[in-house]
């Protein structure tokens, strides 16, 4: 019987389907070399022809195997990368909510004179349209801010999200400072950090100037754990 299979079971390189593309080159060199060495004298033409065919079969089988495997995997991966590809924001673009202007300032449900005049921070809820995938929730609470009114009637606003790792920063009346209960970051009332735990000062938010009694704030989120203030 003719040995039609130069890629005999004894070939040292075991080939898995996935490795086929990578391995097949040295594989072939080896088998072609074998064929040349052993069968140089007899029927070398037909032998090398057989080896060439077997090689082609392997290349083809391996390639097809890779292709049929890759198509579903790649389609799925692209689908999985959807959040990065589309980059949809949860809120921000929409201006349907009452009290949001073109620059993204949101009107807060509090007036200037209602804030304590001695500079005691006041936590105020922020409402906006929330977009969550297929749903849209019009005018729902999306977070809160710390508001402080200075003696000169200036209002400053801070994000309640700790710049360290994102817990909620609280106000401590006794110590008259901001304090994060998770990892014990503390901040002074002007937002500057008071111990080395947080990487940066509290994130101040822009307050719209000249709005009289009304208070409008640009509500933003920032990346945690880094010393720079980077908007998300």
């Amino acid at each position, binding site marked *: *019987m*003719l040995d*039609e*299979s130069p*890629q005999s*079971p004894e070939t040292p390189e*075991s*080939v*898995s*389907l996935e490795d086929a593309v990578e391995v097949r080159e040295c594989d072939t060199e080896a088998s072609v070399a074998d064929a040349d060495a052993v069968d140089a004298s007899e029927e070398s033409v037909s032998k090398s022809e057989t080896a060439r065919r*077997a090689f082609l*079969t*392997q290349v*083809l*089988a*391996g390639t*097809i*195997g890779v*292709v*049929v*495997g890759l*198509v*579903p*995997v790649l*389609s*799925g*991966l*692209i*689908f*999985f*990368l*959807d959040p990065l*590809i*589309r980059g949809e924001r949860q809120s921000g673009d929409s201006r*349907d909510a009452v009290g949001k202007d073109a620059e993204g300032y949101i009107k807060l449900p509090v007036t200037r004179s209602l804030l304590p005049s001695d500079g005691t921070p006041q936590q105020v809820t922020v409402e906006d349209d929330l*977009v969550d*995938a*297929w*749903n*849209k*929730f*019009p005018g729902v609470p999306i977070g809160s801010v710390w508001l402080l009114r200075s003696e000169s009637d200036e209002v400053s606003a801070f994000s309640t999200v700790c710049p360290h790792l994102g817990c909620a920063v609280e106000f401590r009346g006794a110590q008259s400072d901001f304090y994060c209960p998770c990892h014990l970051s503390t901040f002074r009332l002007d937002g500057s950090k008071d111990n080395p735990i947080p990487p940066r000062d509290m994130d101040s938010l822009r307050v719209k100037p000249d709005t009289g009694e009304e208070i409008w704030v640009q509500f933003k989120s920032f990346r945690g754990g880094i010393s720079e203030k980077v908007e998300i």
Partner: protein
Amino acid sequence: MIRSLLAWLDDRTGYAGFLHEALYERVPGGARWRYVWGSTLVFTFSMQMITGFFLWTAYSPSATTAWESVYYIENVMTFGSVVRGLHHFTAQLMIVLMAIHLVQVIIDGAYKAPREVNFWLGLVLLQIVLGLSLTGYLLPWDQKGYYATQVSTKIMGNAPLIGQQAQELIQGGPQYGHHTLTRFFALHAGLLPASLIAFLGLHLYVFRRHGLTVKDPNHAPETTFWPDQVLKDGIACLAVLLLVLGLAIWKGAELSAPANPSENYAAARPEWYFLFLFRFLKFEFVEHYGLAFGSIYVPGALMAVVAAMPLIGRHVIGHKFNVAFMWSLTLGIGVLTLMAFYEDAGDEDHQAAIQEAHRDAERIKELASGPNRIPVTGAVTLLREDPFTQGPRLFAKHCKGCHRYDGHDGRGRLIYSGAADGSLVRAEATAADLGQFGTAAWMQAVVVDYSKHFAPLKNSEWFKNASGEDVLNPDESEMADWSGDAESLGSEENQENVSALVAFLVSQAGHNTRSGQAVTGDKSVVDRGRTLAVEGDWSGAINGTSCVDCHSTIGESFAAVPDDDSDGYPNLSGYGSSAWLKSFLSKPSAGQHYGEKNQMPGYAKRMTPSEMELLVRWLTGDYVVTKLNPYPFRSMPPVRSVSTE
């Protein structure tokens, strides 16, 4: 370097021997195309695992989020329609491939000793895959899947002894709801695939133990699985992939309207590969023996025969019987499937229902992609509160008894009544066709062709029975005389005047066009029309006759006139507007409308206020802009009718 690493790994795991075992399986008689079916099944299953996992990352199983998340996957997310399409079509192809694999095994007698157990393992796999199809069909929670699966679970409820309990357990309660989805999903993505992997492992292990069932060892020189058979398998898998990829890209997986238990879904059918069973259940003799007989005992008995094939095949004629049985079963399934397709194709009602289902599916896409997206109550509320969707249904429910809409019942179906000989004839309308209500065409017809426009009234019983009584008469009334004045109103000189009056009336109705724009018209023309209506500045004999002579409030915005303040002429202030229409529908017999001559029932108590709102908004074009066509006039005669008019 790599070699020594691989040697190290082999020493610890023995992977090389395993791979060798896997790749260098003996293939006596050479690689053949007839061996590819099992491999394509492994491939399709892998495909389902991969695409299924990724769909899982975006699917949300609950009655108010399932359809919504699938909509989002299909229409918004990157490559979502491709991944879902691959999953959808591969699932169907898997059924086909499994049938081919089974047929191949039976023909080749591959179930015979020592392969009986593997045959049974294969049958278990078949059941698991059918279970995956059934559970997967419900997950999008669309009308199609919802109603088709209802049938499956009801059949389950008809099983003897524990049917009722089994049905409630799989549904998570007596009715479909959140827990139906969570349970189906747990089965579809958890238990069933895990069982499939386990049984597939056993199936492959036993297969390798006994080797291929070789039809003809002398067909070609013996070879090994890799690479010869792998190449053939690979090409077959590539063909499978190209087929499903093509279907996914160019056809796309269907997503019908969100499930709505209160909305009948007349287009309900099982997936095409279950159509034979659906058709079988419709035979009278099957129905005669009850649902359990047709849907459980008969299929169960047929499966039992298939399962017994290895035992039957021991005898000399056993194998011949098996093959004959298999072919008759295939033939029966084929014939029943074709019958179901053929009958549905000729069933006007079913075709109309399919068309309506497509319309709803397209419409919900328009609504869900709007700036307000989908409310938390679910997409089904968008359709429930959409005049464009509900208006036609309300018209068909309440109005089609007398009126028509572009000749049909609002939903595109013609209206028939039984004739004496038992055949069906087109029922004549007994009131105006409202398809053009409030448009220029309608106003034009009322003004210049009053008698013809309201001619359907003459078909009604009350009109035919009215002997000399004072009823609404399209032919004999002051309006008919004025409108029918061909020499004056129809004269050359008055053409522009008529157009102006029509433009004015259209502006009074204030309907929206299909692009969502309010119909306003050229202001100078509308003003000219108003002057005509109020002052009667016509040419010819009708000069000086104005609308306001009789319809004293025309041109004013609609305000309900007290009944005792009526003057015997219909109040045409804001004629055709939604305020006018609502008042008219609520009480057409009010003094300000048709008064004592009225024959139309009032609808204030016959429909809820929200229903009337939807109907009126539909009739006045007040809904989210649509690109969809209105229901077409269906001229196809019904197959069951002996004769048409």
